[in-house]
């Protein structure tokens, strides 16, 4: 066997293992398929589920930090802090008003948290408002909202 032949056979072998390897990997990572998407939950419905129809007032006690322009809707950092003693805050709900399911995350607090604070990364399908609703211990609700411009959507 001369050098030329040796290179040909080994490179072929390398290519075939690479192809086979990726095929096997694809099979392993392939997700389950279904015919229908999950049920849609528009913003009004989601808000009603959270508040039970109670009024929600705007408040500057809810600090919502989100970018004005998100280049990638798949990863939008959002931070919410309620500037009240944590004993008075029961939960923070983050909603995205034009997503398929407007509910994004609900966080429930106890006094052991020390601070009503949540920071996470969410997906936005298009340009929309991000709404932070705080549920207070006395049963009332306060909120803050911020429009976020999205250039590439993140929900498929």
């Amino acid at each position, binding site marked *: 066997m001369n050098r030329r032949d040796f290179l040909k056979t080994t490179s072929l072998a390398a290519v075939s293992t690479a192809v086979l390897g990726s095929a096997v990997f694809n099979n392993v990572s392939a*997700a389950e*398929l279904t015919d229908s998407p999950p049920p849609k939950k528009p913003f009004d419905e989601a808000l009603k589920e959270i508040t039970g129809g109670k009024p929600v007032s705007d408040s500057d006690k809810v600090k919502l930090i989100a970018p004005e322009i998100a280049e990638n809707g*798949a990863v*939008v950092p959002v931070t919410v802090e309620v500037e009240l003693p944590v004993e008075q805050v029961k939960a923070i709900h983050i909603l995205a008003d034009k997503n*398929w399911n407007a509910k994004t995350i609900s966080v429930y607090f106890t006094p*052991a*948290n020390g601070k009503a604070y949540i920071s996470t*990364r969410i997906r936005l399908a298009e340009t929309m408002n991000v709404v932070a609703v705080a549920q207070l211990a006395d049963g009332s609700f306060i909120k803050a909202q911020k429009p976020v411009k999205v250039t590439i959507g993140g929900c498929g």
Partner: protein
Amino acid sequence: MARQALVKINPKDYKKGDLIRVDSVIMHPMDTGLVKDKESGKYIAAHHITNVEVYYGDEKITWMDVYGSVSANPFISFYVKATKTAPLKIVWKDNKGEVTEKVIDIKVD
């Protein structure tokens, strides 16, 4: 198989009564159920975290309902008041019944 998860606390040195920020990340695809498979035209089934629970010692101090529109490999950060030496346990549950736990120790003098 348990998923890979990472938990960090900030600041690293703290005293009793200090507020510490807990940053957590778990490796999870967070499939929303809205993405179509290119070959078959069917939807890729929803597979995402639904619940996160945080225990400090025996006490459940915070819990979350998570929906599909949280980004893949979800990052979650929250505060804890360091009042005692106890393990801090974070439990992630997804809609297919997978459970991942991660424990870190909080030590105060």
